[in-house]
């Protein structure tokens, strides 16, 4: 044995004899182990699993294990190769990875990785060992591979009875079969229903296996039409708190039938209106339905929302980014206290919009205790062509308070170069909208309501409206029969001006020569040549001593109609000549006309007065009876004559069956057939 060999034997012996042969450190919270073996230059070895965790998730992929080596005495450890073995509970090697360190005489560290995605769910040992020709050391740590979040949907059903327009209840069971609690789970439901949107519902508090959560969603807009629909449900979630991508669950479907209401609808027009949808934990009190505007104008409406719950909710309002230049919301986020209500103003600017009909989605999100409900309201926005230098009329239709009552806001604004004086605006409501006039209330501007030709006419009287001013008129419509007809509500304005428009052609004006204290009728004939049926207002004013019984008359005129208007007048005690003024106004047109007025003095009657002794009562009655009889007989004769004339006129004007005409038709038919045969 040479000196070197003897020295080595001594060191080994001394190491075994002097130093503790082995040390071990481990705890439940740490996988750090250390081992010292006194062979050659002894060294310690320790390793840490990531984040001191004893559990890993396959989806993480590579796990890095850090390790430290340190000489136990003042010596230099030669370079070494190491190996990490991942050993399953049945003893088989699942993975084997290599590591190495260079020669060292103080603390060194390094990392070695294993691929967790290759491992099945279960318990494992990670063994890391280093050795050289003289020394070796190894360390083992146990860990568990857990299952990531896995959401499975089961038992998807829809409420058993669904009729048109009714809410649809969706029931679904969410189970987590993973060993982790998920984050950011969103449940999606869509349907083949026309117009149905994908609804999402956040489900965040589902815990690790074996937890299950039953979700019930009540949604509107999934039963707009009778028929068979299929609803689809699925969830999207992140597999772990660190996951970046969403994973989609299994997709379930359920077929349901939307039936007609059990009662037979009396008429197809009575399609039940779609109720205002409800957001869980928040109620919409006002929903914009229909807005009309002209280009380069701004119209406002509002969304009302209330919080019926007993805690504060956060309500967010958003519009898609591509509409951000057109739609402005007064609030984007509101903390709504328990029982509180709020109204968010919506300004829509039609600048850069061409005429047409637009659907504007407004997303309303209600958040309570980290649970969020989303509802999208669609506002139909109609932009029509603009006429220059005319007052601008905008009409907004809203639905109210979940009662489906309608609320119409008419705003009339003047541009900088227009003043309205004694103008009239008329709002037209289709008669089919409500059973009778008592179902509406018009206010805000003095008005009166008439009814004709399938419409209610609400006349708004505007005494004066200066440049750049606006006024608002309101109509509350109780239980409208159909939302469809709400869009048929329009408003026109009639502003008297001095310009003469060609669509009004005065054909004939005839005013009689009056006698003082006498009656007479002024006749007016007008040809209306406008393009649309419009209301024409006729007004006649005269000197103070003339009483005009129907000085203002409004009639609906269809294109190319001749209108006949009569003003009944009573002259006072002043004779002479003067003028009366005739005003005729139509939308965008008006004309004035002076009517010559001649009042002649009544002829002076020369009468002889004889004083008669007062008659007895019987004589008086007899006299009255004679007069009454005489007039009654005349009246009967006149009435009979009128009835007979009308009957004759009516009979004579009816179409009658004529044999000779039939012969003529048959003859022409033969010609047609002969002609066809010849062509063949």
């Amino acid at each position: 044995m040479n000196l070197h060999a003897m020295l080595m034997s001594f060191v080994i012996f001394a190491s075994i004899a002097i130093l503790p042969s082995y040390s071990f450190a481990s705890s439940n919270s740490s996988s750090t182990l250390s081992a010292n073996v006194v062979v050659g230059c002894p060294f310690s070895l320790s390793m840490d699993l990531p984040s001191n965790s004893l559990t890993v998730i396959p989806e993480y992929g590579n796990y890095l294990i850090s390790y430290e080596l340190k000489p136990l005495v003042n010596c230099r450890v030669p370079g070494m190769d190491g190996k990490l073995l991942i050993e399953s509970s049945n003893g088989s090697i699942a993975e084997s990875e290599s590591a190495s360190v260079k020669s060292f005489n103080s603390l060194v560290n390094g990392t070695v990785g294993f691929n967790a995605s290759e491992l099945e769910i279960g318990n494992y040992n990670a063994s890391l060992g280093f050795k050289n020709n003289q020394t070796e050391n190894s360390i083992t740590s146990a860990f568990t591979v857990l299952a990531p979040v896995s959401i499975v949907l089961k038992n998807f059903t829809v409420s058993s009875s669904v009729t048109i327009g009714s809410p649809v209840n969706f029931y679904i069971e969410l189970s987590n079969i993973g060993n982790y609690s998920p984050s950011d789970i969103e449940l999606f439901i869509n349907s083949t229903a026309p117009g149905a949107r994908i609804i999402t519902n956040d489900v965040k508090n589902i815990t690790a296996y074996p937890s299950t959560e039953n979700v019930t969603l009540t949604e509107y807009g999934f039963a707009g039409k009778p028929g068979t629909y299929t609803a689809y449900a699925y969830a999207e979630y992140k597999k772990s708190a660190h996951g970046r991508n969403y994973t989609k669950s299994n997709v379930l479907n359920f077929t349901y039938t939307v039936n007609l209401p059990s009662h037979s609808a009396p008429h197809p027009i009575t399609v039940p209106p779609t109720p205002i949808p409800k957001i869980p934990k928040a109620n919409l009190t006002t929903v914009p339905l229909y807005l009309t505007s002209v280009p380069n104008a701004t119209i406002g409406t509002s969304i009302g929302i209330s919080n019926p719950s007993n805690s504060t909710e956060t309500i967010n309002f958003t519009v898609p980014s591509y509409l951000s230049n057109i739609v402005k919301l007064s609030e984007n986020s509101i903390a709504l206290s328990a029982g509180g209500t709020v109204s968010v103003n919506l300004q829509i600017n039609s600048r850069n919009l061409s005429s047409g009909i637009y659907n504007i989605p407004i997303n309303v999100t209600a958040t309570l205790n980290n649970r969020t409900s989303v509802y999208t309201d669609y506002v139909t926005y109609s932009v029509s062509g603009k006429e220059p230098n005319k007052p601008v009329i905008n009409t907004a239709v809203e639905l109210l308070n979940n009662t489906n009552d309608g609320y119409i806001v008419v705003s009339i604004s003047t541009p900088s170069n227009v003043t309205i004086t004694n103008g009239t605006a008329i709002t037209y409501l289709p008669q089919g909208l409500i059973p009778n006039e008592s179902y509406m209330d018009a206010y805000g501007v003095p008005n009166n309501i008439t009814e004709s030709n399938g419409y209610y006419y609400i006349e708004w009287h505007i005494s004066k409206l200066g440049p750049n001013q606006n006024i608002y008129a309101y109509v509350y419509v109780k239980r409208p029969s159909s939302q469809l007809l709400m869009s048929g509500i329009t408003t026109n304005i009639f502003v008297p001006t001095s310009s003469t428009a060609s669509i009004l052609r005065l054909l004939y004006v005839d005013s009689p020569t009056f006698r003082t204290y006498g009656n007479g009728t002024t006749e007016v004939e007008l040809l209306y040549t406008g393009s649309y049926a419009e209301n024409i207002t006729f007004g006649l004013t005269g000197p103070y001593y003339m009483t005009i019984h129907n000085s203002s008359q409004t009639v609906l005129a269809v294109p190319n109609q001749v209108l006949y208007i009569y003003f009944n007048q009573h002259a006072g005690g002043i004779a002479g000549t003067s003028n009366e003024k005739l005003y005729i106004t139509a939308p965008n047109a008006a004309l004035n006309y002076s009517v010559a007025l001649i009042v002649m003095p009544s002829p002076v009657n020369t009468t002889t007065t004889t004083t008669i002794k007062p008659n007895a009562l019987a004589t008086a009655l007899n006299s009255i009876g004679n007069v009454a009889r005489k007039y009654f007989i005349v009246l009967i004769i006149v009435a009979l004559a009128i009835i007979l004339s009308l009957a004759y006129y009516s009979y004579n004007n009816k179409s009658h069956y004529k044999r000779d005409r039939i012969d003529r038709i048959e003859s022409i038919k033969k010609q047609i057939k002969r002609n066809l045969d010849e062509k063949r």
Partner: protein
Amino acid sequence: MKSDSNFIVSDRPYILRISAQKGGVGKTTIAVNLSVALKLKGYSVLLVDADASNPSVGLHLGLENSTGGFIDLLKGKANLEYTVITHGPTGLAVICSPISMQAFGMNEHEVEVAYNTLKKSDYDIVIVDTQPGYFPDVITRKIDHTLIVTNPDMPSYMSALRLSEYFSSRKVPNMLLVNRVSNKKYEINIKEIRETYEGEIAAIVPEDEIVPVSIASKIPAFLLSPKNRFSKAILDLAEKLIEESGIPKAGDSAYITKTDKHKPGAGRKK
């Protein structure tokens, strides 16, 4: 496709052509209001304005600003879905025609392709409003039924008789609608029409002031005043069409796909 009495029973969609040889008899009024009536009864209805000379469906429905429409379909410039616009108040699907000074021409091939496209669509009913006069023979093979519109006067009734003979000679089922009947002295009596017309008279529609009012207000008369006599006649016509033509009840086929409708028992009753 098979014949069922006077009516044709065919696969969906059921194509009804509104025809008249003479202009101004009320084809568009009937087409618009019949479409609205059928839509409100729950059917999926497409109204096509194929009147190249004087398109006016858009004027009736307030859609006069639409461009393209049927001419794009005809010329192959757009697919069906890009030519259809929805009438907001009713949800009725409409293909308009542009209002211009010049009528657009159409050749037989273009017409055949356009009608083939309509026939392949997923609507329950397609109503085609046409221009006055005759039309290429190719169309007769594509339509299920023709409604000839006339007025109770000699010139329009004579043209209706000619048109009826023309259709009958080509085995196209047709029926007559007498529009704007006010029973005036100068009119042909309805009894005379019943006696001389060999085909079926589908409806007698009275003259009604609501029609010009509705056109001016751009709201179909059927929607504007559903209870008046004009609307009643249109409703009767819609119900007659549904009952006798074999169009499935609303909802029966609302979402039958192209594949489904060829399955036994699906779609139209056989």
